[in-house]
C-alpha cells in the first residue's frame, strides 16, 4: 500500500449536505474537508445539531452529499457497505435474533459469499468468526440470548462485535456509548482501546463527551454549530498508547487537550441554546 493511501485513507472533499424540509432547504453541512489516515482514531465532536452524525452517515454511505465527494481507499463512496461498518447509537440489534445470530448475519454476508480473491467460507468457519467476535467483546456466555435479555452495555458490545466481525476497513461509531451510564461507558471505552490496538482499525467516532474524545482519539475534529456547520478546528492528540485513564487524569498534556476542546465548545461555539 502506498504512503498516499495510508495517509489519505478517507478523504472528504468540499462536502455540502442540504436536506429538503417543509420550510425549504436546510443546509446541515457546508464546505467540509477532512482526511483520515489508515489506522487513525478520529473523534467528531460538537454540540447537538452540528451535523456530526450527518457527516458520519455520509462516510457510511447511508446518505449521499448534495455537493462534494467522499473517497475511501481512493474509491468514491457510492453507498453503504460492510467495509465501512457502523455501530449505531441505539445498538440496532434485531430483537428476534440471538446475539450470535445478529453477529452471524453480517459475517455470513461478508465471508459466506464468494468475493474476488477469496472463496466462500464454510459454515464452521463463519461460526468460528462469529464466536471470535463475541469473545473479543467478552460476550461468549450471552451468545444464545436475545437482545431483550441483556443489559444496554452488553447490547452495545454486541453491536461492536457485529461491526468488527465483518473485518471492516473503517469502523464508524455514532455516539456508541451515549446511552450508557458513566461506569459502563468507561469500561467499554477501555475495551474499545484494547480492541483497536489489537486490530489496528481505522475508527471514526461521533461523540459529545470531551473526555471520551481525548482519551480515545488521535485526532479530534471539532465542528462549528449548525446550520451550515463545518469543521472549526482539528486537534491532534499526541498522547502515547496504550493510554490509561487513571494515569492520564493528571497528565498536563491530557489536561491541555481537554482544555482546548472545552474552550472550543463552550467559549467559541457557545451559542447553541439560541439555535435550539
Amino acid at each position: 500500500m502506498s504512503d498516499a493511501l495510508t495517509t489519505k485513507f478517507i478523504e472528504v472533499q468540499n462536502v455540502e449536505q442540504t436536506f429538503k424540509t417543509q420550510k425549504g432547504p436546510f443546509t446541515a453541512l457546508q464546505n467540509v474537508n477532512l482526511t483520515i489516515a489508515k489506522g487513525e482514531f478520529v473523534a467528531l465532536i460538537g454540540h447537538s445539531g452540528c451535523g456530526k452524525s450527518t457527516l458520519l452517515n455520509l462516510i457510511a454511505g447511508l446518505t449521499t452529499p448534495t455537493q462534494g465527494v467522499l473517497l475511501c481507499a481512493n474509491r468514491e463512496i457510492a453507498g453503504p457497505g460492510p467495509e465501512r461498518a457502523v455501530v449505531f447509537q441505539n445498538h440496532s440489534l434485531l430483537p428476534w435474533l440471538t446475539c450470535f445470530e445478529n453477529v452471524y448475519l453480517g459475517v455470513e454476508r461478508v465471508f459466506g459469499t464468494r468475493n474476488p480473491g477469496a472463496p466462500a467460507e464454510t459454515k464452521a468457519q463463519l461460526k468460528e468468526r462469529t464466536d471470535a467476535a463475541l469473545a473479543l467483546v467478552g460476550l461468549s456466555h450471552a451468545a444464545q440470548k436475545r437482545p431483550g435479555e441483556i443489559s444496554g452495555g452488553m447490547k452495545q458490545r454486541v453491536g461492536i462485535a457485529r461491526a468488527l466481525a465483518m473485518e471492516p476497513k473503517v469502523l464508524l461509531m455514532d455516539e456508541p456509548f451515549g446511552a450508557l451510564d458513566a461506569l459502563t461507558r468507561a469500561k467499554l471505552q477501555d475495551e474499545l482501546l484494547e480492541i483497536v490496538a489489537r486490530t489496528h482499525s481505522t475508527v471514526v467516532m461521533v461523540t459529545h463527551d470531551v473526555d471520551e474524545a481525548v482519551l480515545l482519539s488521535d485526532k479530534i475534529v471539532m465542528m462549528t454549530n449548525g446550520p451550515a456547520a463545518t469543521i472549526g478546528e482539528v486537534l491532534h492528540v499526541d498522547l502515547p498508547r496504550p493510554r490509561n485513564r487513571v494515569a492520564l487524569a493528571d497528565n498536563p498534556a491530557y489536561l491541555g487537550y481537554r482544555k482546548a476542546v472545552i474552550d472550543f465548545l463552550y467559549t467559541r461555539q457557545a451559542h447553541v441554546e439560541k439555535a435550539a
Partner: protein
Amino acid sequence: MVSAVFHTPLEGAPAPQPAATPRHKNSNSIAVSASQKSAEGQKHMKYKNTLRWDWRELALTVVPPLLGLGLLVGLWALVSISTGASIPGPVETWGQAVQVFSDPFYRNGPNDQGVGWNVLMSLQRVAVGFGLAALVGIPAGFAIGRFTFLGRMFNPLISLLRPVSPLAWLPIGLLVFKGANPAAIWTIFICSIWPMVINTAVGVQRVPQDYMNVARVLNLSEWKILTKILFPAVLPYMLTGVRLAVGTAWLVIVAAEMLTGGVGIGFWLWDEWNNLNVMNIIIAIVVIGVVGLVLEFALVKLASAFTFDEVKS
C-alpha cells in the same frame, strides 16, 4: 390508517392472579420480621387488608360481567313479555337451545341439518376465502409497503375499492363462478383482503429506519432483508390485519349466506325466519357471537405471542 394495537376481549377484566401475588409476598415478610412485635402488628393489618382487597378485586372481576349479562337477559324478558311473547322469552329459548344442542350434527336432507354442520360450513367458507385472501393480500402488502412505486400505484385503487360493501361483489361472484358457494367464498375473499394488505403495508413502512440501515450497512440481499428483518418486524402488524380480516369475514359470511342459501349459520338463521322459529334465530345470534368471540380471542393470543416487546428499546 389501521393501527396495530391489540385488544384482548377480556382485557378490561384484570385477572385475579396478579392481585394474589402481593398477598403471598406479604405473608413471607411476616415470617421474617416476626421478632419485631410492632412491625408485625402493622404487617398483620396490611395482610388482612390485602386479603380483603383480594376478595373485592375478585368480586369486581366477576360481578360486573354477570350484571351485564343479567341486564341483557332481563331486558330480553321484558321485551318478550311486552310483545305478548311474539318474541320468545329466555326460559323457553333456553329449553329450545338445549334441544338444538343435544343433536348438533344431524342431517335430514340439504335444507335441514344440525347447527353444528351449519357453523362448520360457515367456518369452512370463511377459512377458504380468508386463506386465499391471505395468500394474495400479505405478499401484496409487503410489495406495496416495500416499493414506493407500487404503493403509489395501488393505494388509490385500495382507497377506491375498500369502502365498497363486500356484498356488492356477490353478484359479480355469482356471475363469474356460477355457484352460490364459490360466490360466498369470493365475497369473504374481497372483504378480508383489505385489512391484510393495508396492515402489512403499514407494518413494512413502519419498520424502524435503524433496522433498514443495518440491512444497508451489512448489504443484505433482498431475501435476507425479507426473512430476517421485514417479516419479523411486520408480523405483529400482519397479525392485526389477520384479526381484523377474520372479524370482518365472520360478519360478512352471515349476510352472504342469507343471500346465497345452502348450508351455513347465516342461511340457517334466514331459514328459521322463514319458518317463523324466532327461538332458533335468537340461538343463531348467540352462536354467531360466541364463535366470533372465540376467533377473536384465539387470534389476539396468537398475535401477542409473536410481538417482541423490546422492539422499541
